[in-house]
């Protein structure tokens, strides 16, 4: 029975990845399918496609009450890759995948200092529509975007010290509401800066907890991990989390950009007891943006 439920879990995540890929391909198609007619008389190319590659370093705290009732604090790294397509600076789609790897320590003093580990994967898809922005010829811009998308957060926490490594699994699949403010300085010059802030809230999330803690049933003679509580439960949790991204982008010519940002995300499964999982992460991120196409007036 459990296996079938896992199958459900494993089919949902690829679906989200496929949607991300599809959006990416659509964006690329929009670019590659462009004709000279797409260019306005001034040579303005309305298509801007970007690839982002980056890494983050930061601090995180989690509490997976299925494996331990206490919080673990630690540090980790998170490589990211993202794709953005922006059309005529009026709407944009963005897809990003990041995987966090962290080492944690029991946070209760006086401590028996035991390590724990956490791996989570985030996939974020969003559509943003510009609701305010002063016109392109201005020497600076203030743009406001709103939109939303889909957010997938899947995590495995491992308390390896406890006999029979206990692992808690949690997955959040949520629609996200997103607001973004950005300001660009001196956009008519070759190099310019962007300051931005973006926040997403998850008004409701489908939270999956496929078992509270995993036991390696070695008496079964093979290393079969079995959910100790084999309930593949799903729970709708209102306001299950949020993410914030505050940063500065330095545009190096029209094709490249460097981004330094502060990322924060928090997730809570809601409920109580062994079902409860919460995690908050603060990251300092550095990204390199490669523009496949760009607005040649910028």
């Amino acid at each position, binding site marked *: *029975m*459990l296996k079938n439920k896992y199958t459900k879990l494993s089919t949902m995540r690829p679906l989200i990845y496929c949607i991300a890929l599809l959006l990416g391909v659509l964006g690329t198609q929009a670019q590659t399918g462009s004709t000279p007619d797409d260019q306005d008389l001034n040579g303005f190319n309305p298509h801007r496609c970007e690839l982002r590659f980056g890494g983050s370093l930061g601090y995180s*705290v989690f*509490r997976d*009450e299925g*494996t*331990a*009732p*206490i*919080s673990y604090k630690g540090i980790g790294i998170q490589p990211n890759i993202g794709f953005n397509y922006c059309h005529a600076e009026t709407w944009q789609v963005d897809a990003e995948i990041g995987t966090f790897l962290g080492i944690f320590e*029991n946070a*209760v*003093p*006086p*401590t*028996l200092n*035991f390590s724990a580990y956490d791996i989570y994967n985030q996939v974020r898809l969003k559509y943003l529509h510009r609701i305010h922005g002063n016109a392109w010829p201005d020497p*600076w811009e*203030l743009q406001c975007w709103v939109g939303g998308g889909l957010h997938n957060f899947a995590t495995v926490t491992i*308390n390896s*010290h*406890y*006999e*029979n490594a*206990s692992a808690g699994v949690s997955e959040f699949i949520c629609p996200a509401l997103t607001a973004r*403010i*950005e*300001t660009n*300085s001196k956009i008519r010059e070759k190099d310019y800066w962007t*300051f*931005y*802030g*973006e*926040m997403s809230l998850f008004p409701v999330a489908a939270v999956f907890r496929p078992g509270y*803690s995993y*036991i390696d*049933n*070695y*008496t*079964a*003679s093979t290393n*079969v991990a*079995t*959910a*100790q*509580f*084999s309930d593949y439960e799903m729970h709708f949790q209102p*306001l299950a*989390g*949020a993410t*914030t991204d*505050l940063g500065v982008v330095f545009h190096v010519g029209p094709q490249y950009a460097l981004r330094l940002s502060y990322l*924060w995300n*928090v*997730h*809570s499964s809601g409920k109580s007891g062994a079902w*409860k999982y*919460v995690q*908050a992460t*603060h990251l300092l991120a550095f990204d390199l943006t490669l523009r496949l196409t760009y607005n040649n007036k910028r």
Partner: protein
Amino acid sequence: MKNTSIRILLVLLMLPLCSCEKLWMGNEIENSATETFEYLWRQVDERYSLFDVKNVDWQAVHDNLAPRVYDGMSSDSLFAVLSEMLNTLDDGHVNLWSDNDVFGSEAIFLQRYGNGNFDLNTVSINYLTPHHHTTGGFAYNAIADGQVLYIRYSSFTNSASTSSLEYILKKYADVKGVVFDIRQNGGGVIQNEWNIMALLPCRGQMLYSTQLKAGPAHNDFGEPVAVFAPENKDHTVYTKPFVVLTDRGCYSAASSFALCVKTYDNVIVMGDTTAGGLAIPAGGALPNGWYYRFGVSRTLATDGVNYENGVPPDQVVTLLPEALATGHDNIIDSACTLILNQ
């Protein structure tokens, strides 16, 4: 300049949102004596897998001990109460670790050291002798005028590779059988069971079935998983008589080994009932940072019985003081007689 300030201000307005983190993170369970006591009691109540064979009224244990727990009590006092609670389970896989102490079952301790069926000096001097050999975790010597191979395996934490045992059995290929002594073996790495059984003649038989606790009620278990004898691949199977000696000092993997080898046609388990410990222990943390472990599975033998409290031998033989007085281990001698008479 004014515009720049306004723009930066707008972005910074989002910062306070991050301070709402507490809203999502919530509060931990309070690090207090009463919460720690209740948490551990509840964990055992919902996750421990052996209430049916331990015959413990867990609610009564709670009601008896809870009045002795109060916030502000010393950690040593709390440890004593929690230990007393866990001790009612008489389970060697139940432990509690604090910063300064470790709890283990008193009953299992007494079984091992009070009711042992084993005398190390007699075995070492008169059976292994100073001339014995050691390969991996096995100490061995030919006894009974070279007609029986005696192998002492004292702990399943010691290395027990199939190739090591195969080497020993080939080296003594002419003996009429093996006495495999696991008395006072407190368990260890279960894989070593499979390494040893890989040399016994598999006929595809089921060894046991295992179930994990799967819910909060005492009888909530998952689907049973049947476990079968390992196939003999690339090894020479040992078909001669193989007598396994057990006592009340055999625990965990040693008990499991005794349970498994009883299903082999050429194996006889001799001695005393083991101390049990067939469940998988799993651990966790308490709100005060201490940690614990207890059994979360049950193992059912092929006859459907849960021998958690001890696997009985095929032949009961008790170590006699009068035999010891003459330098003899009458259990080993009985095993030799059994082999030589076949």
